[in-house]
């Protein structure tokens, strides 16, 4: 490394800096530095003439490095680095000395502020004197996206991506696409049929040439980095060849095993070989191996015999496929808070205490009761139905601290639907307060109260229990201050939304963070709401936090857009200020490996090796290595040493 030729440009920032800092003196002091060949001050460095002056000075003095003493680097580092580049310099040999926010604006004493500005500028000069020209690290990209979760979020994202021309691998754990939305009957606030709006999308997914749909599959392992992930996916055997299956239902007719049907939230039963819904995508039966008597013609084998299409194949094996993708969208959705955790509401043991989804199934034309609202216990029409909001939500002491956001709305929907089905029934709603922010939402709630005459009681239900074939609901109406007791025929709990079990699994596999409630953590709560902390991994839907369908869809489209933006580049670039290993000094102790937050380091032949693409340049490794064997480019200990000296008047 030969001696640097550095130019220093000190900005007056009008009077912003010059009022407190003697800028001319700063420039003059910098001129005395070994490596400095030109030092100037100017009234507005960031103005056009100022920028041009910098470019000109670089050319005139054959500068190879630049320091601009001005405002915070967050404002103009890019400006001046662009200038440096424009003048033929490498932008990484341009440094900003912040003498405005960190100096001129916070001090009044001119002498002291000037001294400090000199120190700050000098440390920047010394820093660039050890700076190397660096080129951004280019990464080739695989223009494919992995979408995890086949709910509405995953479906929407996949379609957006595929329609933008990207290949998509959509992985769904269950035997069918659709997630929770396919279980809903009508959707607020418009009360359009959920299946009617979702099914076409599901079909589109299944037919889309760019989408590789993998249902009944699980993500097992992800390696690599943005642009170049490798996803290992386990395809569980369904024992039915979807190509051949005619969905004739012959098999299920002969199957001797009966188990609860989880798609109907156990309100109905199904056979071991089954199809979740008539509209399931892929349109094919699935053999539930856990329920099946044993995939053995000797033991049973009835379904196989029954299938004329010969679609059933007992020898199907689990299959692991590795997919190369450039980006990942996580849309693993929600689960409802477990009723078993609710002692006061019968722990899920009272038959006619339902959760919201079960009620949706009851309302659904394709549901267990073909759209009639009947009590599961005795199949009678309930006349008094109590809807309880905020069950498990907003209860930091016992349950979830957060608001599940959609319960107010779907409870209103439930009350309204109920009244539509059972006009003479009474719908009681216990609520804490009504949160109905959203287009048409407040009106919907008002309609439910006024037109559908649902009885809204503000207050909590302290407990409920079975009594004489009814459910005694003990509550308080906090508005009147009176205790309310209702003998209900049915109770519907608006349970809290919580991240699905699959979300936790996916977060673990992807090594992305989760927030305190277990939802996936976004990179920034405001500015990066669909990005995870790992570059190239995006979030969509309720896996990131409670939300309704419109919001889910928006976020899914946003995540898709982010992935499209990412993959629209031929090559991705990564900041070159990454860690590098001094092989001669490394003893392979692995301390850095353990310390790196990004798992960017591994050992090869007893020496540390940094994966440039994974490294974010935090420098934790270099502060950990006692052998000074690893350092971040352009923030080397040598440069730090020089800066410390500069600050202390060396």
């Amino acid at each position, binding site marked *: *490394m030969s001696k640097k030729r550095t130019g220093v440009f000190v900005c007056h920032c009008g009077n912003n800096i010059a009022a407190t800092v003697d800028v001319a003196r700063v420039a003059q002091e910098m001129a005395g530095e070994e490596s400095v060949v030109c030092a100037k001050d100017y009234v507005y460095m960031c103005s056009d003439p100022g920028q041009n002056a910098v470019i000109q000075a670089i050319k005139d003095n054959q500068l190879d490095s630049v320091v601009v003493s001005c405002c915070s680097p967050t404002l103009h580092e890019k400006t001046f680095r662009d200038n440096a580049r424009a003048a033929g310099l490498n932008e990484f040999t341009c440094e900003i000395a912040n003498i405005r926010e960190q100096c001129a604006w916070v001090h009044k004493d001119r002498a002291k502020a000037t001294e400090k500005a000199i120190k700050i500028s000098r440390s920047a000069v010394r820093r660039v004197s*050890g700076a190397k020209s660096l080129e951004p690290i280019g990464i080739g990209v695989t223009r494919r996206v992995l979408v995890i979760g086949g709910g509405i979020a995953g479906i929407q994202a996949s379609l957006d991506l595929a329609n933008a021309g990207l290949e998509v691998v959509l992985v769904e754990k269950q035997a069918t696409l659709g997630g929770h939305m396919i279980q809903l009957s009508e959707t607020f606030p418009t009360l359009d049929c959920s299946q009617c709006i979702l099914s076409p999308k599901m079909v589109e997914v299944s037919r889309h040439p760019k989408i590789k749909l993998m249902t009944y599959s699980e993500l097992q392992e992800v390696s690599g980095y943005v642009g170049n992930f490798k996803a290992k996916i386990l395809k569980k055997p369904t024992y039915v060849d979807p190509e051949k299956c005619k969905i004739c239902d012959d098999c299920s007719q002969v199957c001797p095993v009966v188990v609860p049907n989880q798609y109907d939230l156990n309100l109905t039963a199904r056979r071991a070989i089954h199809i979740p819904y008539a509209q399931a995508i892929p349109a094919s039966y699935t053999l539930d191996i856990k329920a099946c008597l044993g995939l053995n013609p000797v033991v049973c084998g009835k379904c196989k015999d029954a299938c004329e299409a010969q679609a059933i194949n007992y020898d199907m094996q689990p299959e692991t496929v590795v997919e190369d993708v450039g980006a990942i969208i996580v849309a693993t959705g929600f689960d409802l808070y477990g009723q078993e955790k609710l002692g006061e509401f019968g722990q899920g043991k009272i038959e006619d205490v339902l959760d919201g989804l079960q009620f949706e199934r009851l309302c659904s034309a394709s549901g267990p009761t073909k759209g009639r609202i009947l009590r599961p216990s005795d199949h009678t029409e309930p006349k008094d139905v109590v809807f309880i909001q905020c069950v498990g939500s907003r209860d930091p002491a016992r349950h979830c601290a957060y608001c599940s956001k959609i319960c107010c709305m779907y409870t209103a929907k439930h009350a309204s639907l109920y009244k539509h089905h059972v006009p003479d029934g009474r719908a009681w709603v216990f609520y804490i307060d009504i949160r109905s922010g959203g287009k048409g939402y407040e009106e919907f709630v008002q309609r439910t109260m006024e037109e559908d005459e649902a009885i809204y009681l503000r207050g909590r239900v302290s407990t409920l229990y079975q009594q004489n074939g009814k459910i005694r609901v003990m509550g308080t109406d906090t508005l009147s201050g009176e205790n309310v007791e209702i003998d209900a025929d049915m109770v519907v709990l608006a349970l809290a939304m919580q991240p699905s079990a699959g979300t936790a699994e996916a977060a673990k596999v992807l090594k992305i963070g989760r927030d305190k409630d277990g939802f996936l953590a976004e990179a920034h709560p405001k500015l990066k709401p669909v990005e995870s902390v790992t570059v190239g991994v995006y979030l969509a839907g309720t896996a990131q936090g409670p939300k309704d369908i419109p919001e889910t869809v928006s976020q899914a489209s946003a995540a898709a857009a982010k992935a499209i933006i990412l993959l629209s580049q031929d090559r991705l670039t990564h900041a070159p200020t990454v860690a590098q290993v001094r092989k*001669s*000094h490394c*003893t392979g102790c692995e*301390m850095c490996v*353990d310390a790196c937050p990004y798992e960017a380091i591994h050992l090869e032949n007893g020496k540390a090796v940094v994966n440039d693409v994974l490294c974010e340049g935090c420098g934790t490794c270099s502060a950990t290595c006692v*052998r000074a064997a690893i350092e971040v480019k352009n923030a080397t200990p040598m440069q730090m040493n020089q800066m410390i000296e500069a600050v202390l008047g060396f």
Partner: protein
Amino acid sequence: MIRIEDIRTQARDILETGEVRAVIGWRRGSRGMAAEPVLISQPEEAESLVWDPTCFHNLSLNLVQERKRLARKGMASNKPLALVAKGCDARSVTVLLQENHFRREDVYVLGVSCEGSGVLDERKLARVLDGLTPDSAAYDGDDYVFQTEEGEKRLPAREVMADRCLECRSAYPRLNNAVFGEEKTRGLEAPFAALSRFEQNRGAERWDFWKRQFERCIRCFACRSVCPLCYCEECVVDSIRLEVTPETTADEKANRIRWIERSASRSDNFGYHMTRALHLAGRCIDCAECERVCPVHIPLRLLNNKLEREAREKFGYEPGASVDLPALVSSFRDDDPNEFIR
């Protein structure tokens, strides 16, 4: 009670069967009563091995040196090296394994349990014997027995035992391929007793003390040279780039940072010892070799013990406890101390 014959037999056996390449142990030295480290490769040499209160050296240093020697010659070894290791020495082997300095199968540990009897502090002995110069030392129950020009001298071990042995918390070599002696500790003093005594001092007194120590250091670097964990190819106090390979560029040599000057001034000595203590945090296993060898008696153990105790109390970290643990400074816990941060 350990019988030296047992160690010798075992050493001879593993040499004879070719299970190990060589055995590092102690033998009678040429300098007075003190044992000296020796590397033997012939079975018959096993007869020269000794085990007595002067076996102070932490022989894992020789393991490290042997690795360096082979590396310099570009040789690789395919057979393990055996070493005789006390409890504390075995812990340093553990740290070395933890840091991938060797693979477990490269080392054969002939563990000797100190059984609470420890090793001798020659300075204490000199004080007690006042001019008498023993020719040999031996264990006998709770006593050490010395042969001097005035005949046999018997001293209670605790009077002349090394400080670290008085406070010993790892007399039994957990990591071993074979072990001699029983698992027992005497616990003559509480762990970190000397440290606690020192900490009675207040800030100014502490500084007076350390200032005197640091002014006295002559930078002979014996402390670093004797430490099995100071194995870096190049030390922060070296005056030139010491680790030079054909790939090393002139820049790298020219830009070597001089954090600490080579010359022995108080501030540089201070810098040296602070750095050394920090580099050994979570690694030093209190073999106390550094303190023993310091010709001007700088109580280096205090520095290392201080950080060892902090690691144990604040971070629940025990150096040399497990091969699989990440290092003290490459790990953290959510409840690490935070009160000191504003």
